[in-house]
C-alpha cells in the first residue's frame, strides 16, 4: 500500500514537473514570438518608439532576464498561482480561470461519474440479456465513434436551434442577474443539459461495452465455473463477476480522463459554455498566451487530483492493495 502510493505520488510529481516545464518551454521554442505578436497590436511609427515599447513589453513579460531566471520565475509563479495578466480580460489569469472552473466541473463531474456508473450497470445487464445486448452494443459503438464536436453540433442543431427545446449558447440567460433564485438556477440547468448530455453519451457507450465484455469474460473463468458447479445462484455468480470486472474499468477511468477532458473542451466550444474549454478557444483566437499557460496548468492539476482520487478508490475497491498494507505478502 505504501509502495503503491509512493509510486503513484512519484508519477504525479514528475508529471507536474514535466507539464510545468513544457508549459514554460513551448512559447520559447515555437517560431512565433509572443513579444513580437503583442507589438503588432500597437501602432508604432518610429524606431525609438519600437525599441521603447519592446523593452517595456519584454520587461512586463519577464523575458528580459537570462533563460534560467525566466524558468525559476515561472516556477515561482506556478507555486503562487500567479500566471500574469490575461490580455483578453485585462485581469489576472487566475481570476479569469477561477470564473470558468465551476462550469467545467459542473459538466465533467456528473458526466464522468454518471456515465461510469450507469455504463457499468447497463453493460453488466447487457451481458445477460440478449435484447439489451443487441441494442446497447450498436448504440454504444455509434456514440464512441462519433466525434465530440459533431455530436455536440448535431444536438445543438436538432434539440436547440431547430426545435428550441433547449437554449443553444452561454452558461445562463444573459437577461438574468446571477443569484441564487429559481429562475436563474433553472436557466443554469437548461444551458447545462445539452453539453452535459454530449459528454455523457460518448463516455457511456464506452463503459457499457467495456463492462459487457469484461463480465462475459469473467463468467467464463474457473472461479465462476466452480461457483456454478457448487450450485450457487446465477445472481451470486454475476455479483462476483461484476466485482472483478470493475477493477479494470477503474484503471480504464484513469486512462479515459484525458480523452474526456479534451472532449469537454470541444463540447464547450460548440455550446459556447463559459468553462475552461471555451476560455481556451478565446485564448487561442486572441493569442492570449499567459491565459493559455494558466489554463494548461489548471487542467493538469485537475487531472492529477482526479487520478489520485481514482487511486484511493482503487484501494477501497480492491482488497488486495489493502491486504498488502496490513503486512500480508502482496
Amino acid at each position, binding site marked *: 500500500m505504501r509502495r503503491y502510493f509512493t509510486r503513484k505520488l512519484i508519477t504525479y510529481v514528475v508529471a507536474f514537473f514535466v507539464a510545468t516545464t513544457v508549459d514554460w518551454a513551448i512559447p520559447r521554442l515555437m517560431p512565433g514570438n509572443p513579444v513580437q505578436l503583442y507589438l503588432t497590436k500597437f501602432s508604432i511609427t518610429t524606431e525609438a518608439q519600437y525599441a521603447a515599447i519592446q523593452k517595456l513589453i519584454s520587461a512586463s513579460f519577464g523575458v528580459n532576464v537570462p533563460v534560467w531566471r525566466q524558468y525559476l520565475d515561472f516556477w515561482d509563479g506556478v507555486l503562487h498561482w500567479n500566471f500574469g495578466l490575461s490580455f483578453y480580460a485585462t485581469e489576472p489569469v487566475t481570476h479569469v480561470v477561477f470564473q470558468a472552473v465551476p462550469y467545467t466541473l459542473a459538466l465533467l463531474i456528473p458526466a464522468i461519474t454518471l456515465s461510469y456508473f450507469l455504463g457499468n450497470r447497463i453493460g453488466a445487464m447487457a451481458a445477460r440479456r440478449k435484447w439489451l445486448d443487441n441494442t446497447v452494443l450498436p448504440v454504444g459503438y455509434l456514440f464512441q465513434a462519433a466525434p465530440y464536436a459533431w*455530436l455536440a453540433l*448535431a444536438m445543438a442543431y436538432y434539440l436547440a436551434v431547430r426545435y428550441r427545446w433547449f437554449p443553444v449558447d452561454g452558461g445562463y440567460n444573459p437577461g438574468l442577474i446571477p443569484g441564487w433564485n429559481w429562475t436563474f438556477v433553472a436557466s443554469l440547468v437548461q444551458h447545462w443539459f445539452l453539453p452535459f448530455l454530449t459528454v455523457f453519451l460518448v463516455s457511456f457507450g464506452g463503459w457499457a461495452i467495456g463492462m459487457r465484455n469484461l463480465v462475459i469474460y469473467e463468467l467464463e473463468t474457473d472461479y465462476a465455473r466452480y461457483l456454478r458447479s457448487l450450485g450457487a445462484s446465477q445472481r451470486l455468480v454475476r455479483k462476483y463477476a461484476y466485482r472483478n470486472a470493475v477493477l479494470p474499468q477503474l484503471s480504464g477511468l484513469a486512462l479515459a480522463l484525458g*480523452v474526456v*477532458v*479534451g*472532449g469537454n473542451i470541444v463540447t464547450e466550444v460548440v455550446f459556447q459554455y463559459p468553462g475552461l474549454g471555451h476560455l*481556451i478557444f478565446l485564448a487561442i483566437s486572441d493569442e492570449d498566451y499567459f491565459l493559455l*499557460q494558466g489554463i494548461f496548468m489548471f487542467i493538469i492539476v485537475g487531472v492529477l487530483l482526479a487520478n489520485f482520487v481514482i487511486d484511493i478508490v482503487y484501494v477501497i475497491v480492491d482488497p488486495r492493495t489493502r491486504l498488502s498494507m496490513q503486512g500480508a505478502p502482496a
Partner: protein
Amino acid sequence: MSINTGPPSAAGDFAGGLSPGPIGSPILAQSVGVAGGAELAAVAPGAGGGSFGGGRRWEFLHFALRNPKLMLGLGVELIFVAVAIFGPLLAPYSPTYHGTPALHPSAQHIFGTTSPFGTDVFSQVLYGVRDSYVVGALGALFAGAVGLVVGFAAGYRGGLLDEILQLLTNVMICIPQLVLLIVISAYLTTRGVLFEGVFIGVTGWPWVARAVRAQTFTLRERDFVDLARLSGRRAVSIVVKDIAPNMASYIFLVFVLLFASSMLVAVNFDFLGLGPTNGLSLGDIMNQSTLWSALELHMWWWFIPPGAALTLMVLALYIANVGLDEVFNPKLRQT
C-alpha cells in the same frame, strides 16, 4: 489467462492498459486481452517465428471471409478508402469553387452549398476524407511505433529501464493529449497535415506501451524465449523474431484502434481551428461551418455530412475490429 497470473498490482495495470477509455475504447478491454492470450496458448507449442506458417494463415482467411462483422466493417471502410483515393476525381466541383451560397441539398449540390462563398459541401467532404485518413494513418503509425518500442523495451529488459519507461508512460497518461496538442499548436502559424499526424502519434502512444509491455512480460517467461536467449541471439532479434510474432494479432488490433482514435483526435483538433493550414479535413469543414454561423442559419447540411462521414469511418473500423478479434481468437468463434 495471463490476466490472472501476475501479482495484484500488475494485474490492475495490465487490464487497465487494455482499455484506453472512451476513444481508444474499452471495447477491447476483454477482446484484445483474450485475443492475445488465446493466441499465446495456441501458438506456444509451435514455438517461435515459424508458428505463423501457411496453414494457419489460410485458417484465418477461412474464418475472416465468414465473419459478417469483419466483412461489413471492412466493406464500409473500403468504400471510404476508395473515396479518399478517387474522391478528388469524382468531386463535381473544386473545393474552392464559388457558386450560389446557402443552397439546400439538391441534385446539383448533394450536400448543398456553404455561405457566403457558395462552395459545394459534397466536394469538400470528398476531399476531406483523404486528409482525415492521412492524419489518422500517420498518427497510428507513429503512436504504434513509439508504443511498441517502449513497450517491448520495458517488458523485455525489465529492471531499471522498465521503471523509467513506465514512469514516462504514466506521466504521458496524466497529460491530456488534446490539451497538449492545443497548447503546442496555438503558437504555430503554419501547420501541415504531416505535422498534425506526427504530433498526434507522438502524444498518443502511452496506452499502447502499457499494453505491449504487459504482453511482453508474460511472453518473456516462456521456454522458447529462454531457449532463444541461451542460443546467444541479440535482444532485438529475439523481440522481433520470437516475441512480436506471437502477439501479431494483438499488435494488428492495436493499430486498427490507433487509426480510429487518431482520426477522432484530429477531427476535434481541426474543429477548434488548429487543423492543417495546407489542407481541408473533415474537421476543418465543421470548423468553417461554425465560423460562419451555420448553426444559427439552420444550414445543417454544412456540418452534419462531414461529421457523419467521419463517424462512419471510425464505426466501420470498430466493427471490423470486433470481427477481427473473433477471427483471431478461437474462443470467440463459436459464439
